[in-house]
């Protein structure tokens, strides 16, 4: 920028300023004439300083608080993750322990019941639920990772009773037909009758037809039903279910409905006895 030549500064203005300043200085030093003004200005300055410091501190505190909150949130998240990990580990350990205990108990029960060590346990691979709930085919598949040779028509246990028999095995799966499958026939007995119970195609239901009049039928609903062992596959005298209904078909013909004891949906492990009834 081109500068203009400095204008002439008359000494008069400076002299006035000079003497005015001296006068004010003299008055203030000797008589304290402007002490009030100074006090007010100092107070105002201090007030502004205090406000500024307060605002600054608030900003710093807010920032620190945000930072602290952020740190706490991060710590909280880490702790939550750790808790989740511990919970998951704990759950896995518990499940593992429970399954081990279950297997041990099942072994004990089966060994005690059948006095045979020739039982293999298999974990369920899948159950054909769609057919199980709607249709006549009721089958489950068991895992056979060791690919143990499994014969057909072996007894399959679950819980405290039989649930069906093996039909075939392929790859590392064992197919088991359940009692409730319409193609399955199970020889059963009660205290007053023997019959071949056929699956009804409904979960846990089998039925058999007897040539008896209902009036002379001695059993009642709730009576236990056992395997008769006549088919040569299942051991006799094992309770498989309870009579849940007695229907009249004709004058001398009745249908006995049996509700099975072992529910395949409630079990995870199944035992297969590697010997048939007639071999025991």
């Amino acid at each position: 920028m081109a500068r203009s030549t400095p204008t002439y500064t008359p000494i008069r203005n400076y002299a006035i300023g000079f003497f005015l300043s001296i006068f004010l200085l003299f008055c203030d030093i000797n008589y304290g004439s402007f002490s009030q003004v100074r006090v007010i200005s100092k107070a105002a300055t201090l007030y502004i300083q205090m406000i500024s410091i307060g605002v600054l501190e608030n900003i710093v505190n807010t920032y620190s608080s945000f930072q602290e909150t952020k740190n706490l949130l991060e710590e909280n998240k880490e702790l939550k993750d750790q808790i989740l990990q511990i919970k998951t580990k704990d759950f896995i350990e518990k499940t593992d322990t429970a399954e081990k205990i279950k297997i041990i108990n099942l072994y004990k029960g089966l060994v005690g019941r059948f006095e045979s060590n020739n039982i293999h346990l298999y974990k369920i691979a899948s159950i054909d639920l769609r057919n199980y709930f709607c249709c006549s085919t009721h089958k489950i598949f068991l895992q056979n990772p060791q690919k143990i040779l499994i014969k057909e028509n072996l007894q399959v246990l679950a819980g405290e009773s039989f649930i069906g028999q093996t039909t075939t095995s392929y790859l590392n799966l064992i197919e088991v037909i359940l009692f409730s499958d319409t193609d399955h026939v199970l020889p059963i007995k009660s205290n007053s009758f023997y019959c071949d119970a056929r699956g009804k195609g409904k979960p846990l239901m089998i039925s058999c037809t007897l040539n008896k009049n209902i009036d002379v039928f001695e059993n009642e609903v709730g009576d236990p039903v056992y395997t008769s062992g006549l088919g040569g596959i299942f051991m006799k005298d094992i309770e498989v279910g309870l009579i849940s209904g007695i229907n009249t078909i004709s004058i001398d013909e009745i249908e006995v409905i049996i509700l099975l004891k072992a529910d395949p949906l409630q079990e995870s492990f199944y035992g297969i006895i590697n010997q048939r009834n007639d071999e025991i």
Partner: protein
Amino acid sequence: MGLSTSGMMKFRNHLIILVTIVSGFWLDNTLNPLTSRLFIELNFGFLIFSYWIFALPEKLQSFAALVYGFVIDLFFSNVIGFNMLFFVGTSYIIHLYVFRFRIFSYFQLSIFFSGSSVFYIACKYLLLSPLNYSYILLIVSFLINAVLWIGVYLIMRAFRRRIL
């Protein structure tokens, strides 16, 4: 450019100059309690004021110096009139020799402005606090302010070219 061609300055520019001078005195007030143990009295405020008069002599004259001095007295001084007196006096001296100063080297300028600054400090002590008057303080402050002047000059010049 905030400067008008008529030689008068806008109020905004006066405000900016005043803010820089106030900042200098605020810096002095903040730092001097720490440096006084080393016999150093910093005088940023006075040097900044001197720079503005030196840089814009035709824009800042007696009245501006008087008003700036009054404001500084109000906020930073223990007596009213002290800074007014020195600002008016310094302004007059600079106005008288401004063209000579223009051909001075940095060294000569720093000697002059540091000397003015030490004179200001000496008068302040003599007038307001004679018991603390110290030649060592004046000598050390002279050297320090001479160095400071170079920094003040360069920084304020850059600031003036950018802002005003």
